[in-house]
């Protein structure tokens, strides 16, 4: 089984330095396109590969690049940004790629920049990723020294500057347009769309924002072709995917597997199944802002369409498993507390609705729930939905809650009826 993204990441997790990366075939894709390809060809190739964004929304990467205005009349400078502000609870896939093989990301970004003819690239990094910060700094310096960045890259006459920006550390900074505001030195509130970033993004100029993992796929698509990439997958979406598992499994971790690998296979073969004494109850498949899937969905293949059909979203592909020894109300309360804290405060439903949700959940968890609380929560899942709020944060926050209210209704009712959390005493309090 091919694992293009992680194949060169060392077992001791030390950084793949530029020499090692080059010896493994690194920067060959860049050399190839600069020598032989027009920018448009890069975008077309990426389109043909069926690569979809790995940040959570799964938007077609080639299509995103094709929105950028091209030609001599296009506004300048154009920007390209790697979104490395990985802050979704339960998600740690980009960190692995950033720390293990930063040059792979750099090459992907540079190729992407060539495709959209960007002049300036930013890596927008989560503040807490200190090791990644150090390694990216080193990698950018190395790439510059070898002529992969800067003026007249590899003698092609094409220029690209790259900057590492370490974010101030809020969940909203990872939202595409919140990120742009943050990068401009403003509050990380989301922007109204249209216009979309490819037309008017950073400082009002055409801007392409892609996730780290998305960019890391690019050199391999160039090297091996779109057909090869599509065939890596067990589904219609091309390529492999980094899948992560956390929760009470035997081997929590991260694996690069073909897109479309079924949940059961990931949980049982790779994560080693549930820990002794723990029963599987449900899983949120793609980070905190996705709906719970129950045992009946274990055979769902992890790709964008299949998970959606099952009633959730693949998101970042990093699962959090809920077991029978953990209180589902407590788990959801923990998530909602996070989202309430991370609301940027821009729109009313999110700013004031999420804290209300979190407080109701806290009250239920602490045995102070009231029968009407479940209606209140249900109303929030409806009115904090897509279109009601300014961006996707609150709708995302409502996904685990909405599904928990359906799947764990009896548990909620028990909390309220017994005025206590059954799990708390079960732990021998």
């Amino acid at each position, binding site marked *: 089984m091919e694992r293009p993204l992680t194949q060169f990441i060392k077992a001791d997790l030390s950084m793949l330095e530029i020499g090692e990366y080059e010896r493994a075939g690194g920067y060959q894709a860049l050399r190839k396109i600069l020598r032989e390809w027009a920018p448009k060809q890069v975008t077309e190739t990426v389109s043909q590969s069926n690569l979809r964004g790995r940040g959570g929304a799964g938007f077609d990467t080639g299509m995103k690049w094709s929105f950028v205005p091209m030609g001599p009349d296009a506004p300048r400078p154009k920007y390209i940004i790697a979104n490395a502000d990985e802050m979704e609870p339960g998600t740690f896939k980009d960190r692995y790629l950033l720390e293990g093989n930063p040059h792979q990301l750099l090459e992907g970004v540079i190729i992407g920049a060539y495709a959209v003819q960007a002049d300036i690239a930013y890596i927008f990094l989560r503040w807490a990723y200190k090791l990644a910060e150090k390694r990216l700094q080193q990698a950018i310096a190395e790439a510059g020294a070898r002529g992969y960045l800067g003026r007249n890259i590899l003698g092609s006459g094409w220029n690209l500057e790259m900057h590492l920006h370490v974010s101030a550390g*809020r969940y909203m900074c990872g939202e595409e347009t919140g990120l*742009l505001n943050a990068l401009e030195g403003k*509050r990380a509130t989301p*922007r*109204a*769309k*249209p*216009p979309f970033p490819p*037309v*008017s993004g950073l*400082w*009002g100029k055409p801007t392409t924002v892609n996730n780290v993992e998305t960019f890391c796929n690019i050199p391999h698509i160039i090297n091996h072709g779109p057909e090869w990439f599509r065939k890596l997958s067990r589904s219609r979406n091309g390529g492999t995917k980094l899948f992560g598992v956390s929760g009470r499994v035997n081997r929590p971790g991260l694996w690069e597997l073909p897109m479309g690998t079924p949940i059961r296979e990931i949980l049982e073969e790779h994560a080693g199944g549930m820990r002794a004494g723990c029963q599987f109850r449900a899983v949120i498949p793609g980070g905190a802002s996705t709906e719970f899937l129950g045992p009946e969905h274990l055979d769902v293949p992890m790709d964008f369409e299949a998970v959606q059909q099952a009633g959730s979203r693949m998101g970042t592909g990093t699962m959090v498993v809920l077991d029978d020894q953990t209180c589902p109300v407590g788990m959801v309360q923990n998530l909602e507390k996070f989202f*309430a*804290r*991370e*609301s*940027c*405060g*821009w*729109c*009313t*439903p999110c*700013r*004031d*609705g*999420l*804290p*209300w949700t979190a*407080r109701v959940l806290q*009250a239920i968890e602490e045995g102070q729930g*009231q029968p*009407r609380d479940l209606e*209140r929560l249900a*109303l929030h899942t409806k*009115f904090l939905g897509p*279109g*009601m*709020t*300014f961006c996707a944060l609150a709708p995302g926050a409502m996904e685990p809650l909405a599904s928990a209210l359906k799947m764990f209704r009896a548990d909620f009712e028990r909390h309220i009826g017994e005025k206590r959390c059954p799990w708390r005493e079960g732990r021998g309090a």
Partner: protein
Amino acid sequence: MSTIFIDNETYEAPDGQNLLYACLSLGLNLPYFCWHPAMGSVGACRQCAVKQFKDEKDTRGKIVMACMTPAAPNTRISIEDPEARQFRASVIEWLMVNHPHDCPVCDEGSECHLQDMTVMTGHNYREFRFLKRTHRNQDLGPLVNHEMNRCIACYRCVRFYRDYAGGRDFDVFGPHDFVYFGRHTDGVLESEFSGNLVEVCPTGVFTDKTFRQHYTRKWDLQTAPSVCVHCGVGCNTIPGERYGMLRRIRNRYHHDVNGYFLCDRGRHGYEFVNDSRRVRQPLWRPQPSEPLRPVATEEMGRRLETLVADRSKLMGIGSPRASLEDNFALRRLVGPGRFFQGLAARETQLLRSQLEILRQGPARTPSLREVELSDAVLVLGEDLTNMAPMMALALRQTVRQQPLRLAAQFKIPLWSDYPVRELIQDKKGPCYIATPLPTRLDDIATQTHHAAPDDLARLGFAVARALDARAPEPPELPPATQALAGEIAEALKTAERPLIISGPSCGNRALLEAAANVAWALCRGGRPAGLSFTAPECNSLGLALLGGEPLEAAAELLGSGQADTIIVLENDLFRRAEASRIHALLEGARQVIVLDHLANGTTEKAGVVLPAATFAEASGTLVNQEGRAQRFFQVFAPAGEIQPAWRWLARMAGALWHNLDDLTVEMAGALPLLQSVADIAPPADFRIAGQKIAREPHRYSGRTAMTANVSVQEPKPPPDPDSPLAHSMEGFHGIPPAPLNPRYWQPGWNSVQAVNKFQEEIAGPLKGGDPGRRLLEPPANSTTSYFAEIPRPFAPRPGEWLVIPVWHIFGSEELSALSSGIAELAIKPFVALNAEDAERLQLKEGDPVSLTMDGLAEPLPVKVVAGLPRGVAALPAGITPPLVRPLPGWGKITKGSPE
């Protein structure tokens, strides 16, 4: 117009707008918070949710925000859809999570947009059972009060303060439900427009601190349409009174003048009306050495008849802060040849030049809204923030005009505020600011140029020359100035709506003429150039239209023995010229009769002082800097003996006019330029359904009790023979003709936002047309030739400084400076020097010096101003106590205090 469907009814909606704008323009009720008609949509509050349907067959629809959705042809929405209604009620419920539930005792209650919108959505039961978050409030200075616990985070304040008004010391801080709107630390708000937060805030976070000191409910305020008297821009206002005390000033929307905003001087400068120094009864000085003594009005009337019996010995001194009617009444009493302007010769001359340039040249004087829509500006000599504050606010919008074209290119609607701002970033259209000192507008300037007034005029002449070879050329121009002139000329020439702004504040006529040359050169090149002059006082231009000679000529007439009785109208002459000259003038007269609001230096010298009504106690007409005549109406009938000045004068003239209309009609007949003034508002006998228009709201309380301590008999409302407004809660309460509208109120709309209901279209003209009448339009075929008197380059004199006046929004205007809040912020006396000059004299900031001008020495602290030209010093103008010198003029500066 495009056809849209709302709840299955067909409507014609204005093109290119959003659905909220369309719904409100159509008179429908749809709640909102973050949207503001002057600032567009941002989609933050989610209050204006409606359900949108794809077509007739779509029964599910989806909830959209009306403010963020274009009102495109065939758009189909429902306001009444149950889910949309429920969502809107939920938004209020969320906003009320942390909002205090204390409306009955909240000072915003009764005019709170949040209250109105809460009622509109139907939310009425609190289900949130947890604690509210609380904030610490800040001391934001003497004008604006801060009460953050009331905040519903609509972001309007920060959008107005920063994005619209260019302020930097106010922002939004903190995340999630702890967002905080204020300064980074306590302190006086720096913006000269901070008072607008009071009206921009949809609830009571920002309230008028001066109003709080004499608070009353909105429904207990007697109000009338008025015009601001604190500068020449003529912003429309709504003053409110109770118990004979003026309580506050609010914006009165005018599409072409002030729109939705006011400056802080205009909003907070009203307290002089209540001042303890008010003259409240006729005063008589039996002997020159004796103090003034009160006299009964009837008795005074008889004495006045004797005093003015010999008309051939009378002379009148008018005022730029008195109404047209007051000035005309005086002019009529004494005769045009004996009517003087009450200004020194230099100021009279400047005003005359201004008027003649506007009357005879080909350039049009724009309204404030047209200033806003201009797309390239040259400011010659004026510090607008301090001379005409609202014009400075307009200019901040002006510089967006050229960049806004980018939005059209990207098909981003202009109402979509943040996408537009993100697209244009900090791009600014051409704006050249040439002033002696740095100004608060320099941050929006393409280029600033600081020089002595004569050199600024020379720059202007050079720009005109670069535009038209027939214009005279200033000799000996330095190459850098020449290059700048070329750049400015190019920017103006290539603009669609170029604008030149100048004014009299430097006391330099060449500046006005240079500005005229630039505008005329553009006009002759086929560009529709606007030419705008500031005016120092509320009726400066009106006074100019009435004509009259300066004070120097008055002194001559008196000296010649052809007059012995001076009548001074609402004018403290000691602010107009050096004290020695005014003493000489007043002491040379047998009798001095002064009509004014307040005791001042001039009333001190008077033999007779008559209590004259302020703008709030009288009706009349003012002409603003644009040449727009606007009527203001009596807000309340003054207590005691106070009367409008024109009534005192009418009595002296032998009961010439029965009411204001008689006077206005006579004035319009006598002066062709003022012909239309009689028509700017409906006459006093105008009635709607047989009723006068009620100045008091229908909820006005305490009517039968407020004078019960005097008599239990309810007094008859004071009559108002001068207007169709009544001092009563009885009368017409609907939407009257715009000039007569005493307040904005409609059922369900108790806040200032009720103005929506009074406009033909949102942010458009008022129903029935905006009030006021423009008196000046350029002649069809102007043949004026260019001004050719170009000043010599400024040459510093060794050991001497050219002392120029510097005006300040707070302190330079006489009446507003008496308000406590304004007084606290007022500019203090100083003499400003260039850094190099100060260094040469071994002076640093704050050091005492002596400024000697005209033989008079004045001790002053030094202020070091970077950017002030060498050899030029600046002295605050108009402040109290006045530093009256013939400015600009030459002076000597010596270290240390004078002997």
